[in-house]
């Protein structure tokens, strides 16, 4: 277990996805172990979400529904990420192959699991803030919006990680061995007529030597690029980047709507507990509705607020 947590830590610190590491071989993370850690982090955040339902129903005859909601949320948060992964993985792989990248299916899967690990770690770290607001706030709309913000922030950072690692993986797989300078002609180099790429620095500047004692002194180590940083001097083809960006957007939209399909996560205080609600509306309409409800002083829908 500790080994897997360390693996997640390496992903978070960017050690697992540094260009040097990627070039030595495959993108190597324990797939099963990382999934398990991600699952536990998701369960933790789900429990934090479900606390609201328990508190709002605490001294009421339907208090048991609060615990049902808590259990349901603990199941649904990991489920949300898992289903989003299932829906988006095939298209990422296909488009990735289509634009000429040489990543294998397993590598793409590892990449997505690592990105979900980043999202879940970040989300779980917001758990303390969420529980604090849950305990002190009675406004249901505020809790919904706070959760939306937390999911959005962790989702965006996770996707930034994904995009950056995709970028690095593609570059690492296409580049030549470290002795020679970087290839001047990449398969997807910018078309003629555009600004030509700057003269690339020798590979030594871009990829620090693998032996850490050699030149990674104290100063150099501080500057080690994080997992979200673009390695300098490397360009991917323009349309490759466009495809990846569109795909990331699709991932975000699927994730958001998946959250809506799997609702309730928090549990409207005076509606009976159900595992899923019937199909209606969509995520964005609902978020807008919550914003209006948050500030409208006399909305009838607030009749369930705690007295």
């Amino acid at each position, binding site marked *: 277990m500790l080994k897997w947590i360390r693996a997640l830590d390496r992903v978070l610190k960017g050690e697992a996805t540094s260009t040097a590491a990627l070039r030595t071989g495959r993108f190597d993370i324990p797939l099963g172990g990382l999934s398990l850690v991600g699952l536990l982090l998701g369960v933790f955040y789900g429990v934090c979400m479900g606390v609201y339902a328990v508190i709002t129903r605490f001294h009421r005859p339907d208090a048991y529904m609060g615990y049902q909601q808590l259990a349901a949320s603990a199941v649904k948060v990991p489920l949300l990420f898992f289903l989003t992964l299932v829906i988006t993985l095939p298209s990422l792989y296909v488009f990735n192959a289509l634009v000429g990248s040489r990543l294998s299916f397993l590598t793409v899967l590892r990449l997505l699991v690592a990105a979900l690990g*980043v999202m879940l770690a970040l989300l779980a770290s917001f758990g303390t803030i969420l529980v604090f607001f849950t305990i002190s*706030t*009675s406004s249901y709309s505020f809790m919904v919006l706070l959760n939306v913000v937390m999911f959005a922030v962790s989702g965006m950072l996770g996707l930034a990680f994904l995009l950056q690692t995709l970028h690095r993986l593609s570059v690492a797989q296409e580049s030549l061995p470290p002795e020679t300078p970087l290839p001047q002609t990449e398969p997807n180099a910018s078309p003629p007529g555009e600004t030509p790429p700057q003269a690339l620095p020798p590979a030594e500047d871009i990829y620090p030597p693998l032996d850490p004692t050699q030149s990674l002194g104290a100063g150099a180590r501080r500057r080690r690029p*994080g997992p*979200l940083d673009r390695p300098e001097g490397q360009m991917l083809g323009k349309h490759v980047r466009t495809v990846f960006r569109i795909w990331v957007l699709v991932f975000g939209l699927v994730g958001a709507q998946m959250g809506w399909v799997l609702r309730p996560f928090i549990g409207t205080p005076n509606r009976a507990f159900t595992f899923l609600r019937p199909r209606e509306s969509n995520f964005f309409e609902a978020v807008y509705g919550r914003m209006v409800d948050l*500030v409208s*002083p006399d909305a009838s829908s607030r009749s369930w607020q705690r007295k």
Partner: protein
Amino acid sequence: MTPFLLRTDDLLRGRFGADETPLRRVLPHLFLSVLLFGIAYGAVMGAFGGVRGERALQVLYSAVKVPLLLLATFAVSLPSFFVLNTILGVRDDFRLVLQGLVATQAGLTIILASLAPFTAFWYASVASYDAALLFNAFVFGLASVAAQWLLRRFYRPLIERDPRHRLLLRAWIVIFAFVGIQMAWVLRPFIGDPHTPTHFFRTDAWGNAYVVIARLLLRAAGI
């Protein structure tokens, strides 16, 4: 006592943490500062309704609440900040970051305590509860701005070493303020309205500071 005050002086002059003192030796001193100076300001803050009889309780409550406010906000905000630091790739600096953050908390309480005489003077000269409320908001605002100055000083070498710390500094201020405002709202009353009985927590409303503010703003705008 004298070494304690000397180190406090060092903290204010920005000489703190320059030497390589291990973190576990520095942190207890800093937390002790938060406690002592926080209690000092809190006690003054709660003295608006007088210090005799039942009102002495308010003094006691406020004295407990000010350090509680800062430490609880810190504890709630720290996990996400830690993960953010990791994900942006500057975890190796977290020892220094943590020291800077805690030192800023200590600095904030020291500044608050130094402003306590003004608060006492204000209480002695103005009888209005609303005015007392406003004055404390002003004092807290001033202390926060001054403490941010301290925080920036701790962050300057970090930012020089790695520009990503600038972004993280802003992230910390946003997270800490977001949690801190709600924490202060939850821990009300700090001053204690003289016309209502003394309570540790308001019984009527927990509520949410941001919802209240949004409604007030909309009402003010006439919507």
